[in-house]
Every structure is written in C-alpha cells, then in structure tokens.
C-alpha cells in the first residue's frame, strides 16, 4: 500500500468515526415499520403498521380493506342459491365449510331438513376442507420460523385432499356444492376407498410435521412463550377455533352447538392446550388435523343410504324471519345472521367470520414483542384475508 492511499484510508476511517459520533447524538426515536401488505405471513394483503422502539414493538395496528369486496351488500341483491357462490370465496382454503352455515340458516328459515345421507356427506366434506385448510397452516408455520421443507410437504399432501374434494364436487377451491335441502350430487364410485387411503396419508403428513417442527428445538425456542393469550382475554376479543382452544378454553361448536350435522353421531375429542402461546396454537391445530382424519374415516364407516335431496320448491322463496347459524370452521366460528322478508333473496346477511375477531387481538398481543416474533404470532393466529375483509 502506498503512503497516500494509506493516508486516504485513515482519513476515511476518521470521517466515519466522526459520523458515528454524530449519529450517537442524533435522535433515535420510535420507528414505524410496515409489515405487508405483501408478506408471506399475511395470506393475502394485510398491512401491520408497527411502531418500534429498537427491536421492540410498542404498537401494532393492522390495516385492512385491501380486499374488501362488500359481500354483505352483494348478498342483498342475490337470490339464496346465488349467494353460495360469493360465500365460497370468503375463506378460500376451506370453501365448502363456508357454505354449510349459510345453507343451514336458510334451511332453518324454510323449515326444511336435508336427508341424513346429505348431512353425513356434508360433514365429511366439511372435515376434508378442515384438513386441506389446516394442512397448509401446518407447513406454512415452518416458513414463518425459517424452515422451508414443511411447506412443500404441505402443498404436496394437501393436493391429495383437494383431489378428493374435486372428485366429489367438481371444484378444487370453490365447490359450490351445497344446496338448500341437500347436496347437488351423490359421491362418485370408488370415492370412499380413495378417501380412506388419503386419510391414512394425511396422518403420515401429521406425523412428519410433528417430527419436523413440533420436536424441533429451533421451532420450540421461537414459539414457546411467544404471543401468550390468556383465556379471559381470548374470550373478550371473541377469538374462536384453535386460537381459543390453545388458550385452554374447551369450546367447540361442533360439539357444543351442533346445528344438525353428523358430528354428534361419532366419537371424537376436542383438543385444548393450556399455554396460549404460538406453540400451543400450532399443537392444537396439528391434533385437530389428525383428529379430523379419524373423523372422516368414522363418518365413512357410518354413512347412511337414502336420498341426498329433500323436497324443495323449484323457486326458492324463504319465509320471513331471522336465523343465526354458526359452525366450527377450520379457522373458527363462522356464522351467518340471515334476515329474510319472504323474498327470493336475503334482506340482510351479517357474516361473522373467525379471522376478523382473531386478528382484532393483534394490537393487544403484539405489544412489547420483538420484530421476528411478530411474524410467528401472525402465522400462528392463522387467518385468511378473504375471511377478514369479506
């Protein structure tokens, strides 16, 4: 090195040091960090405006509306059968499960009951939607903590379930299969055996996830004790689904407020976890997915014969009245408050979606956590943006 360049270098270092000294005295106030709208953890376009003090979040405010489609208003100008097309697109990963409470509400108003076989097939498809939906979560949660492999496994295995849904309904994501009074079609030939095989595969997938993530030290360090939600707070915010059960509340609408599907015909258990942290939410969903595979098998065993459609008039006119029906969807309590004036379409539909309530706790739970934990907490709360924005 020549003397001049050596000198130049020293001068440069001195200047840097001087800069650094100035920076020390500069204001290091709170910083605003926008997480999203485009982020893998947001399952759509959600923006979280975080106010940071160093690495710590002092305030986090979700900003929604990027995907608001006004379904409640649109339902008011459609007939009942037309509404299910929209409703399919609320939680797009578990579409069939969205249709069921709306159809049940319309059936309650019309005082029509679907025949037993239709109810059982509904329950089976409902649980298949749950498996397809939660399988993606189980893999996706790995991505939030930096493990890429699980999500590929999830996409691979979810495909098998989607294939079964497609074989029965004709639609992978938007089945639009449920009808007032029953179902569009019966199950295709050979479907039951195929589904049994798929359920065995999905249990294998659950085991893989258990090995890859639940038993993983890094995963445990990142998730245990992070984003703890006590039971009373969870209830006050109206959390539902696995988020509530991971806080130790033993509440499952499939068991506690079954609106008439076949859940109480079979043996199954509700899983809870007392911790209320990100790990507990993952753990509960994992158990639920596995439980759902057993439930599907039991439902297939007991599937009754008979018609799949009740006698329903050709033009569906729903008598005046009100009904609220909610079911335990993959994400939590999904309910429809339907007000009818005896017209061809609903007068007002209030769509109570699980993700809206589940995300409303974000400002509370994010207070004081560190930036990397924001992602794991968001991931573990598990929401679908279409389900928040409707």
């Amino acid at each position, binding site marked *: 090195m020549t003397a001049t360049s050596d000198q130049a270098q020293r001068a440069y270092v001195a200047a840097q040091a001087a800069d650094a000294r100035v920076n020390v005295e500069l204001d290091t106030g709170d910083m605003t960090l926008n997480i999203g709208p485009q982020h893998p953890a947001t399952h759509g376009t959600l923006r979280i405006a975080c106010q940071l003090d160093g690495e710590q979040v002092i305030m986090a405010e979700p900003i*929604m*509306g990027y995907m*608001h489609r*006004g379904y409640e*208003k*649109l339902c*008011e*100008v459609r*007939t009942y*059968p*037309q509404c299910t097309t929209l409703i399919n697109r609320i939680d797009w990963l578990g579409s069939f499960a969205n249709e069921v409470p709306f159809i049940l509400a319309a059936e309650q108003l*019309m*005082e*029509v009951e679907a025949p037993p076989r239709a109810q059982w097939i509904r329950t089976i498809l409902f649980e298949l939607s749950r498996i397809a939906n939660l399988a993606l979560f189980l893999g996706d949660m790995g991505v939030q903590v930096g493990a890429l492999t699980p999500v590929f496994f999830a996409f691979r295995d979810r495909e098998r379930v989607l294939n079964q849904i497609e074989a029965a309904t004709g639609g992978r994501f938007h089945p639009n299969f449920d009808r007032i009074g029953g179902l569009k079609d019966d199950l295709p030939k050979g479907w039951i055996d195929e589904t049994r095989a798929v359920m065995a595969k999905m249990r294998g997938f659950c085991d893989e996830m*258990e090995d890859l993530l*639940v*038993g993983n030290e890094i995963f445990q360090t990142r998730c245990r004790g992070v984003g703890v939600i006590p039971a009373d*707070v969870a*209830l*006050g*915010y*109206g*959390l539902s689904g696995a988020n509530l059960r991971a806080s130790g*509340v*033993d*509440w499952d609408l499939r*068991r*506690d*407020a*079954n609106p008439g599907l076949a859940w109480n015909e079979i043996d199954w258990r*509700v*899983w*809870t*976890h*007392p911790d209320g942290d990100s790990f507990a939410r993952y753990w509960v969903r994992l*158990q639920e997915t596995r439980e759902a595979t057993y439930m599907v098998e039991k439902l297939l065993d007991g599937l009754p014969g008979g018609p799949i459609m009740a*006698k*329903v*008039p*050709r*033009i569906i*006119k729903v*008598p005046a*009245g009100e*009904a*609220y029906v909610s079911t335990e969807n993959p994400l939590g309590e999904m*309910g429809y*408050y339907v*007000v*009818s*004036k*005896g*017209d*061809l379409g609903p007068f*007002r539909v*209030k769509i*109570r979606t699980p993700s809206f*309530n589940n995300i*409303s*706790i974000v400002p509370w739970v994010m207070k004081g956590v560190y930036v990397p934990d924001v992602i794991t907490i968001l991931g573990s709360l598990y929401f679908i943006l279409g389900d928040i924005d409707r």
Partner: protein
Amino acid sequence: MSDEAPDNDEQVAIGSGQGDAGREALRSELEDLLGAAVVDSHIQEGQNLWLRVEAGRWQDVARSLKGAGFNYFGFLSAIDWTVAPEGRYEDTEFDAGLDDDDAEPVAIDNTTGHAGGDTRFQLLMQLHAPARGAAVLVKADVPDDAPVIDTLRDVFPGADWHERETHEMFGIGFTGHPQLVPIYLPTEFEGHPLRKDFPLLARHVKPWPGVVDIEEIPEHLEAELEAAVMAEFEASGGGE
C-alpha cells in the same frame, strides 16, 4: 409432542343443545337479571334466544350479561329495516327517489324481526356463555333522530373493531369509542354502504342479467307456472 396432551376430560360439555326448555329458563333468568331494560324477547324453537333491550341501557346490559357468564363475545352489527322491495334488483326507480328531498320518506318495517323493533336501525350482538353452553342474541333499537349508542369497548375489547365496522357501514355512532376511523373503506369514502338507501352502483352501470337462476319462462305460461310453484311451496310447508 403428544405426551404433553393436557387433560381436558374433566370439563363436561353442556352444549347449547340444552333445548327450548333450557332457553325458556334462560329467558326468565335474564329477564329477572336485566329487569326493565328488556323490552321484548323471543325464542325460536330449536334455534336461539333473542332479547331486545333499551338502547340507553346497552352498556349496563352487556355488563350484566358478562357477569352472568356471557363473557364470550361473538359479533356486533346492525340491521337497516328500511323497506326497499324494489331496491332488491333493478333498483333505479327506488334510488332515484332517495336523492330527491321532496320524495316521500321511506317506509320502515321491522315487524318481521324476532323480538320486534320500532326504529330504522337495530343493533345486534351475539354473546356466548361457554361455561353453561348457552348463547344469546341481543338487539337494541337505535334512536332515529340521533343514531348513537354507548360503546361496549370497555366491556368486551373485541367490540372495538365491530363498532368501527358498524360505524362506517351504517353510520351509527358509538359514544366513548376513541377511534371510530374506517376499517375497510378508504378515508375519503362518502356514505354508509350497508344502509338500504346506498345505491349499489354496479347494478346501475350494468343491469343484473338474471333475477332467478333458472331459464326464462315464456310469458303466456308465467302466471300458470307461478301458481303451480306456489301451490307446491305451500304444500311442502315452506310458507308457514
């Protein structure tokens, strides 16, 4: 890991399938608890219990219900009872009248709702009682001259966002809510979309192609078919 399975067998499921007898008992219990605040109540067989309470006691009612075990917040929203039968499909004529100040005031009919109602806007809330496996739907008539009601934010923190949504969609105010900013709509958006008099512009720009999702019926057969369909409908017991 699975060996960490917490024991939850000791909790017994009661289930809100406690039936209508349970709902009757719950109704009389809540009517005693809330006293004069209850205006009306309704039980739909095999479904739900509705309570209509006084708007002025909205916050007290929520507090009392929370004390009585209804500590699990479900949702909060509103219903606009403005009658707009012609507003359902091709609603041009109906909406045209709304912009005109001299037009006759729109009719309000909330008699078909459970537990009745007297005003245009009705607030609606659902609460669960997980420990007793029960649920209740609570309604309140929002005064027509000043559509404002107390916030439930301090009782149920989850009501915060639901009130923001109800505020922007229906224009109902919530006293005591510190941040009634829009949750979905852009800041500069004008109007309250879920009010019945808010026109759905998409329908004005391009008329809806199908009112009924079946093939068109020839005109000379229409009346005949409609009568037949209605007869079938009545016979199936759907009209009751």
